[in-house]
């Protein structure tokens, strides 16, 4: 260790220092540890694990009869992930720490290659996440296109049935993995420290680690296809899971790896929001987006361990031969259903809450009105997060659980629509007598309300047990959750991307292309998924490659709309590439006229975010309020200043009175 002592201000809690000056690598960009070495070691790890697995378990009779060695595949995937992490340099510090070493300062070059390295700078990690979730999204989208292609005809015609369910499962899994990090990953990591007035994340290495696990998960889940796919869909129901071929191992390992990444990402964000708020950033002043990320992070950190454990049980069943999910051996097929959905339902809100936060940020800006009922919004998000732990058995209504549990879970499920309704109260209240500017982000925000309303109301149908007898597991449910996840979260995400892109990159997205993207996406999203409610009611179960002849018209309509929906994403890609890389247009400092703290900093945001740690004077929603205090003092002479003005949110300026 030849490093100088970093000033204590940059010392992390567990010694996670991040000296902003730090050390610069003099090596050329292609040397050192980066994605390339990660891939190399990842492949090496895969090969080693495969070899080890064959050595250990190759002789077992069942491996011979099945013609497949699950032990080898699991070990290969796990060691592949370890190799990837070691290759990108994620393990350097954790290992050095064993020898008591202090953190090695990170290369903080602003060279573009930083996006391919293990960077602990939250804005770099945010951009890495942004690209990664888009890759995930488009991969899942292409798979969706092939699903819709197969469903053009009521019988099997282009894709074989085995390939078809592999694609269905792959689509679901990739999309779920993507959606659980869609907002938290890019926007959460990038914006949250700036929004709460912090110079850093609580655990920058944990944050970076979560990203590299996330990206490793992408490769792991992709290996499922060449390994023969998995037949279970994203829900991975056992004992079909136990029965499946080695592609299933990719699912189990992939979900564990992604799950670990989700836990770490949520862990870091939660600790950061709780502890790194700037002076004066009281709980009643943090942006509503931070509230949503707070609630989401809590769900990520607490619900996902259950998934990891359930996946571990599945791996043990398939490799060591335990019988967690095998009834005939003292296990239970319900065990997976319970554990999975105990994670799975909070997961659903992991994929909804950040969207609420984003639209909550954008509505005041584009209506020039304060956010209506801020406390209700916060309460709604926390309420949804809490309740989401008590609803999971509604996925098991028709599975033969104890019948008297069903009214109870019907109640909890329907209760959750009350805090969800708060979000609508906030939105509608903010629109009241507003001055709505139809910028691209605002269009997405309004569309999110439009879509999520349909998704939410149909959720009440699904939660009602007698109706659920008909719609459970049908295309109705499929349409329902696409309306909430895609109609809600993905729309909000794209709104957020258009909204914050000037901050993230300093470039404006093209407005015309943005509007074309929005209208195509909005119209064809609804044309794709609304018919699915009818298709489901008319008796088409999910994940089938054959359906009733009479449903072909509706399915074809839906398919063609889906292709157009797919094309709308191409418009986004063209817009993205054009506006950021080809013909960049410098963005104004605060193009939307937002009061949010993140818009008060420079663009590009300096590496340490703030020259001085700001003193926050009020919440960022004082629109159309002459004489309101500025949101923060960016150059405070002393932190005591806020105590005089805003301690406890009590001062006249803080209350927004003239």
């Amino acid at each position: 260790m030849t490093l100088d002592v970093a000033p204590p201000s940059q010392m992390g809690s567990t010694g996670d220092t991040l000296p902003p000056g730090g050390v610069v690598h003099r090596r050329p960009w292609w040397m050192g540890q980066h994605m390339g070495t990660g891939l190399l070691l990842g492949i090496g790890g895969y090969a080693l694990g495969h070899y080890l697995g064959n050595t250990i378990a190759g002789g077992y009779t069942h491996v011979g009869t099945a013609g497949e060695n699950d032990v080898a595949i699991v070990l290969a995937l796990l060691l592949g992930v370890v190799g990837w992490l070691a290759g990108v340099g994620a393990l350097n510090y954790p290992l050095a720490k064993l020898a008591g070493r202090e953190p090695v300062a990170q290369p903080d070059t602003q060279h573009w290659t930083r996006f391919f390295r293990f960077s602990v700078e939250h804005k770099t990690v945010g951009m890495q996440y942004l690209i990664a979730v888009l890759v995930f999204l488009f991969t899942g989208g292409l798979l969706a296109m092939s699903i819709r292609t197969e469903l053009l005809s009521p019988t099997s015609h282009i894709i074989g049935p085995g390939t078809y369910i592999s694609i269905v499962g792959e689509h679901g899994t990739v999309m779920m993995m993507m959606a659980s990090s869609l907002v938290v990953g890019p926007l959460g990591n990038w914006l949250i420290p700036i929004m709460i007035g912090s110079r850093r994340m609580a655990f920058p290495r944990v944050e970076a680690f979560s990203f590299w696990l996330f990206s490793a998960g992408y490769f792991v889940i992709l290996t499922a296809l060449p390994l023969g796919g998995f037949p279970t869909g994203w829900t991975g129901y056992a004992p079909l899971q136990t029965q499946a071929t080695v592609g299933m191992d990719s699912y189990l390992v992939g979900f564990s790896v992604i799950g670990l990444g989700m836990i770490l990402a949520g862990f870091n964000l939660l600790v950061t929001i709780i502890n790194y708020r700037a002076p004066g950033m009281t709980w009643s002043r943090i942006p509503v987006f931070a509230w949503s990320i707070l609630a989401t992070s809590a769900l990520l950190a607490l619900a996902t361990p259950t998934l990891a454990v359930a996946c571990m049980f599945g791996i043990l069943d398939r490799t060591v031969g335990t019988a967690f999910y095998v009834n005939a051996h003292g296990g239970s097929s319900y065990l997976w259903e319970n554990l999975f959905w105990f994670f799975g339902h909070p997961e659903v809100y992991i994929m909804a809450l950040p969207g609420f936060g984003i639209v909550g940020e954008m509505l005041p800006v584009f209506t020039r009105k304060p956010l209506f009922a801020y406390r209700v919004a916060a309460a709604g998000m926390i309420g949804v997060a809490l309740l989401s732990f008590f609803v999971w058995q509604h996925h098991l209504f028709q599975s033969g659980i104890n019948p008297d549990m069903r009214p109870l879970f019907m109640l909890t499920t329907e209760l959750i629509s009350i805090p969800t309704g708060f979000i609508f109260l906030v939105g509608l209240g903010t629109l009241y007598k507003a001055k709505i500017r139809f910028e691209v982000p605002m269009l997405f925000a309004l569309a999110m309300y439009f879509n999520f309303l349909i998704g939410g109301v149909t959720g009440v149908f699904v939660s009602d047990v007698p109706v659920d007898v008909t719609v459970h597991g049908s295309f109705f449910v499929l349409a329902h959750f696409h309306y909430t996840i895609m109609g809600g979260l993905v729309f909000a995400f794209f709104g957020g991307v258009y909204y914050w892109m000037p901050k993230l990159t300093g470039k404006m997205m093209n407005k015309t292309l943005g509007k074309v993207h929005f209208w195509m996406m909005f119209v064809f999203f609804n044309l794709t998924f609304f018919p699915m409610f009818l298709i489901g009611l008319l008796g088409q179960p999910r994940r089938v490659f054959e359906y009733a002849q009479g449903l072909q018209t509706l399915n074809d309509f839906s398919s063609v709309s889906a292709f157009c929906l797919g094309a709308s994403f191409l418009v986004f890609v063209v817009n993205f590439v054009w506006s950021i890389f080809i013909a960049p247009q410098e963005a104004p400092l605060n193009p939307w006229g937002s009061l949010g703290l993140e818009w008060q900093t420079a663009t590009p945001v300096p590496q340490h975010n703030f020259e001085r740690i700001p003193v926050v004077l009020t919440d960022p929603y004082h629109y159309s309020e002459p004489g309101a205090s500025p949101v923060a003092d960016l150059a405070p002479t002393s932190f005591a200043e806020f105590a005089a003005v805003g301690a406890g949110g009590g001062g006249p300026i803080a209350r927004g009175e003239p």
Partner: protein
Amino acid sequence: MSQVRVPADSGYVATPEELAYEARAAENALFTASRLMIGCFAFAFAALAFAYFYLRSANSYDLWRPHSVTAPVGTGTAVMAFTAAATVLLLFGLRQLRRKDVLAFDVAGWVAVLSGLLALGLQCWELTDLPFAPATGGYTSVFIGWAVMNIIMLVSGIYWAETLLARRARLRKAITEEGGAVRGVPSGIFRLNVDSCVYFWGFIAFVAVFFWIFFYIAG
């Protein structure tokens, strides 16, 4: 080394107020994080406990625990005992550290790590030499699940304790000086870190005893 030092030129100098603010934030973050980490592990072990009680009450085909199979009680008790011993030792070490008896902290800490490693080794050994097949019943499955999770938990706990002790070995006495900061590690933070680690070990011991009871004693 191809690294060179450059001055912290990114353009800001922290004021003493900011330093104090960030130090306090770091301390609070450590406190929150250690408790949250226990929360994450608690949910994981809750899933295991759920599997245990669910399969036990479902008792499919009367195969929860055929012939009352039991994992080796001696080994299991030893694993639990070593885990508990490590916790007690760390607790003692923390107390001595608070009294600035660093030598006692070092000795207790390293013995605790050793004890944890023994528990870990025994747990691995027990897993490779079970008197039943994994698929014998629900009990055997959940037991193997527990053994794997216990290994993961012990590794986490030992890693944390070891890194603290290793850092302490590098930093020597300086950390005990009240308010002193050597190489950027304020002693307050270090003590809080040890404190959190011990807290986590308390959780490990609780889980170890809980599952020891249900797997070996009250099954």
